[in-house]
């Protein structure tokens, strides 16, 4: 078990069978992410970056290969164990924000803590702190429909941090935002990396956004192409 790497993908394959045809979304992907690293994964549509993200986020299991999260092999775990891991170790940020529409900003942030059986008091305290952290202390009781896209994504960032995960996975977090708002969201992610030392894996097709990361990996046809350094040290 390597303490250096929080995420380790070794020869990971993901094959979907559509009719009688096998489609390989990942073809022996090997990728390691250091603890506290800010990694951007780039690639064109169909390159397998979302599949890779699902594997790292324990949303799916590989057809072949090994995935380790914080040293634990998660490639063959049962769904309930994976759910537990997701809830405790991973925070997701989605392109479409994916906030629950009937819940207020505060309640959306409290939900991941609910699944970890945290007390109401503690949930409230943490949700309020996190909302203040993303500059939405005055929008706690607003429904997602009452917030702008940028504000919704900031709520989603706060939700991703709810259970204080080690890894934050952001799948095209600026994809549904204009450039200015996208930059604000990126500033929050960078701050998160810098001040809290979170490991961040960012999936994007936007090279400007990717350059904010420490390292950029490119995927093509389900495997890595080459490695580049981002702007950040």
């Amino acid at each position, binding site marked *: 078990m390597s303490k250096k790497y929080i995420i380790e993908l070794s020869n990971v394959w993901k094959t979907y069978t559509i009719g009688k045809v096998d489609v390989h979304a990942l073809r022996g992907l090997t990728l390691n992410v250091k603890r506290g690293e800010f990694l951007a994964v780039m690639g064109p549509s169909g390159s397998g970056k979302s599949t890779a993200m699902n594997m790292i*986020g324990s949303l799916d299991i590989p057809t072949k290969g090994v995935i380790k999260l914080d040293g634990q092999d998660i490639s063959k775990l049962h769904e309930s164990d994976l759910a537990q891991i*997701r809830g405790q170790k991973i925070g997701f940020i989605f392109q479409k924000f994916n906030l629950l529409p*009937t819940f207020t900003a505060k309640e959306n942030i409290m939900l991941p803590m609910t699944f*970890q059986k945290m007390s109401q008091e503690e949930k409230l305290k943490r949700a309020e702190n996190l909302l203040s952290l993303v500059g939405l202390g005055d929008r706690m009781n607003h429904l997602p429909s009452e917030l702008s896209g940028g504000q919704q994504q900031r709520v989603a960032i706060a939700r991703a941090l709810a259970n*204080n995960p080690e890894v934050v996975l952001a799948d095209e977090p600026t994809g549904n935002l204009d450039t200015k708002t996208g930059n604000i969201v990126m500033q929050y992610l960078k701050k998160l990396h810098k001040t809290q030392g979170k490991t961040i894996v960012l999936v994007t097709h936007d090279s400007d956004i990717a350059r904010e990361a420490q390292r950029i990996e490119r995927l093509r046809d389900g495997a890595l192409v080459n490695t580049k350094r981002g702007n950040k040290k």
Partner: protein
Amino acid sequence: MADTGIIEEERRKKAQNNVIFPFFGGGVMFTDYLKIAVNNIRKRKLRSWLTMIGIFIGIAAVVAMISLGQGMRNSITEQFEAFGIDKITIMAGGGFFGIGGSAELTTEDLDVIKKSRGVAEVTGFLTSTARVEFGGESKFTFISGVPTGPDERELMLEVLTVDMADGKFLGSGDTSHAVIGYLVGKGEFFEKPVKVGDKIVIAEKELKVIGIIDKIGNPNDDTGIIIDLELAREIYDEPDRLDAIMAQVTKGTSPSSVAENIEKDLRKHRDVEIGEEDFNVLTTEQLLESFNTVLNIVTGILIGIASISLLVGGVGIMNTMYTSVLERTSEIGVMKAIGARNSDILKIFLTESAIMGIIGGAIGVVIGVMMAKTVELAAIAANYDLLKVEFTASVILGSLFFSTVVGTLSGFLPARQASSIKPVDALRYE
């Protein structure tokens, strides 16, 4: 990190506290599921109300039927208790209450019964319809001839279990007077009320009204007229016929054994074999049992019909929940991504369907109570006072429990489907 320490400590505490709602994994979690479920129901208000209609119609019907049935049972039991458990009723015919039989009871049978072992007193009466005239009006009603002789009058009064609203009952050998039912005295039979002292004409015989019987609660009885048996025989030209014979058992004797004696003696007298009797001998207990059996069958059938509505209501909940699962597939994916286990999703959806069941049930109980009360008021307005409703806690709580079970069971399959969706597929769902 200090933060992680706090979270771990919280998790540990919660795990220890999971005793209040073990199924939901702790009290805190239950309220959370409840909140999520209520949020979802509120978001789809119209659909949720429409879904619940099925449940509350079913529950309302069940509550109304049971309450009316129970009320009726109580009234009948009360009447039989007033009649006395030491009485035996003998009626002609092999069917229930003589219906369907052509045989008749006669005064000879009465004499046989009088001699049966364990019988203290015997009386019998004759009832038929006849034309009654009053104040220029002429109407048909039931006229009962009851014995007013010194031996039988007392037992007859006991058997009739009537109270007088005005005046007095027929005296010994009173063939020139009549006692009228409550509604006749109230002016709801003839246009004008018949009062004590008024004269009525039955089959060309003028009789003076000397008493008005208090309300019984059954229009047949309350519009009836009671006259002396001998007079009735003359009017109907029935010298021997009796429609019912009532016997009182001697003190300390078991009514059922006396009933057996009567049956045996009557069989012999009427020359019939066991199992081929053309008469019925029933103790008060048996009479009550017969009434209750009929009432149970009728109530059972009605509840069965109401249950079909509940079943349809359950299917409605299932349909709504399936639609909800489809609509919220992406939400399910998000919840799973942020740590919800399959069991959490299952419980959220089950809670939602159970809430629809319980709210539907609660509204159903209220409507059922209102329906039963309306029927009772309508019955009273139509002079059927016997139809009284009784609401018991067991019926109300039982209905609520049942509707919750229906809601939960109906939601089970959709909830299981929701919980088994793979997170990655759910997130991809548009």
